[in-house]
């Protein structure tokens, strides 16, 4: 297996960054990790998860879609997209990589969202295997192997080295370009690490929750369950869970009048917000119960029903850690999943 001495990691980033932008998880002043652009002095963080997921790269919280120029009665539409350069995302965990294919099912479905597609096409994903999962992780529940993440290039971090395996053409090209830093070394240590981690993953408290009830044929029964009232009563109606979630993809499109033109932008929106479904007709989800139910029904029932059984959750555990009132998808699955 090709590997890189960790002491040469900085050199590796420097080399890759000569060609393309490189993003990697970095510890910020809050003691948590966030993706940042590599520049001299930026240090890779092997923190398990960034606060915000990697979906930002393809579906940013805020993006300008187009500009409008108005003069008299005429309107001109200006596509403000610049041809994007390729970029490399380093250190994406298996759960986040899995979330990309869930987002693809939404944004690349007909009609294709070209903004998303453009960024997707330009990205090279270097994933990072997990070796120290949190108790809030539950990716095995969805069949995700955290010890063998997907992506253009899979990576494993050991005591002193990072091992690489290319999964796509893009990944191979990147490895070739960096070949002078890499060396062929015994990959046995990776297999050992994988086995150890697998054992931990297997024993994670939520690795084997019962999802059997969450399927299309139980839609009405689940929807009408009296348990939603109790589960949703503590919900603050904030957007934390939806914004840290790697698979939440609701958005809003708005116009901003700059005083010398109009910018149309897209930004994240949250189904937990009271005004989310306010539409021409009225607001069909007036209470927090309905909004709370929508989020979990979408992830656990509607989405799999429309997408060959793929759940709209990857078990990254961010919402378990971040919810201000500790009400989360695991508690919902446990409550509703029992007979």
């Amino acid at each position, binding site marked *: 297996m090709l590997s890189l001495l960790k002491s040469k990691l900085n050199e590796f980033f420097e080399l890759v960054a000569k060609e393309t932008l490189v993003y990697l998880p970095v510890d910020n002043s809050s003691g948590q990790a966030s993706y940042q652009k590599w520049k001299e002095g930026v240090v890779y963080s092997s923190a398990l998860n960034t606060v915000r997921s990697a979906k930002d790269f393809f579906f940013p919280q805020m993006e300008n879609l187009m500009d409008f120029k108005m003069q008299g009665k005429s309107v001109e539409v200006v596509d403000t997209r610049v041809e994007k350069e390729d970029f490399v995302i380093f250190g994406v965990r298996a759960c986040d990589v899995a979330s990309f294919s869930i987002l693809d099912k939404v944004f690349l479905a007909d009609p294709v969202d070209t903004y998303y597609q453009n960024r997707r096409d330009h990205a090279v994903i270097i994933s990072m295997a997990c070796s120290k999962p949190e108790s809030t992780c539950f990716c095995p529940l969805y069949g995700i192997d955290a010890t063998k993440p997907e992506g253009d290039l899979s990576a494993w971090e050991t005591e002193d080295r990072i091992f690489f395996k290319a999964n796509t053409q893009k990944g191979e090209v990147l490895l070739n370009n960096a070949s002078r830093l890499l060396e062929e070394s015994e990959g046995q240590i990776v297999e050992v690490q994988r086995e150890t981690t697998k054992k931990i993953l297997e024993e994670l408290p939520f690795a084997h929750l019962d999802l059997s009830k969450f399927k299309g044929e139980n839609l009405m029964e689940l929807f009408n369950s009296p348990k939603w009232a109790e589960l949703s009563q503590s919900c603050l109606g904030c957007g934390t869970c939806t914004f840290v979630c790697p698979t939440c993809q609701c958005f809003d499109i708005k116009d*901003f009048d*700059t*005083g*010398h033109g109009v*910018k149309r932008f897209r930004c994240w929106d949250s189904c937990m917000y009271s005004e989310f479904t306010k539409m021409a007709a009225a607001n069909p989800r007036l209470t927090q119960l309905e909004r709370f139910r929508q989020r979990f029904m979408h992830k656990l029932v509607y989405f799999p029903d429309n997408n060959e059984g793929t759940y709209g959750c990857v078990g990254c555990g961010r919402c378990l850690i971040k919810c201000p009132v500790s009400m989360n998808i695991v508690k919902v699955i446990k409550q509703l999943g029992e007979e």
Partner: protein
Amino acid sequence: MSMNGANEFRPNIVAFCCNWCSYAGADLAGTNRLEYPAEVKIVRVPCSCRVNPLFVLRAFQRGADGVIICGCHPGDCHYTSGNYFARRRMTLLFSMLDYLGVEKARTRVEWVSAAEGAKFASVMKDFVQTVAKLGENRRLEDIRCKRQ
């Protein structure tokens, strides 16, 4: 923000003037042909206490380099006590802006009566000079609203 030939910075100033005193003061300055800088854009408000902190912030967003609020002298408010409330609010707001690192000289409150046309003109001249020295508003700017 605008630049003239001599590269001198000319700030955008928004002045919120209370209808009963300061706006009349500005009017008096005009009828007496007292000059005050053209950079000052006056927004008439019913009372200085009508000025919500958001007004101040949004003036900065939309390109103001300085914001000044003018009201009746304490004790002279048309609505008895409006300017007393405005005084507390703006004190706290300005202090907060300072705390966030926004230059404190960009914000000001002045009491100008309907009879003080000359004071209005001199206050504005002074404020424009002060803000001009600070340069363009960078710390509370909305880049989208800047003209390229």
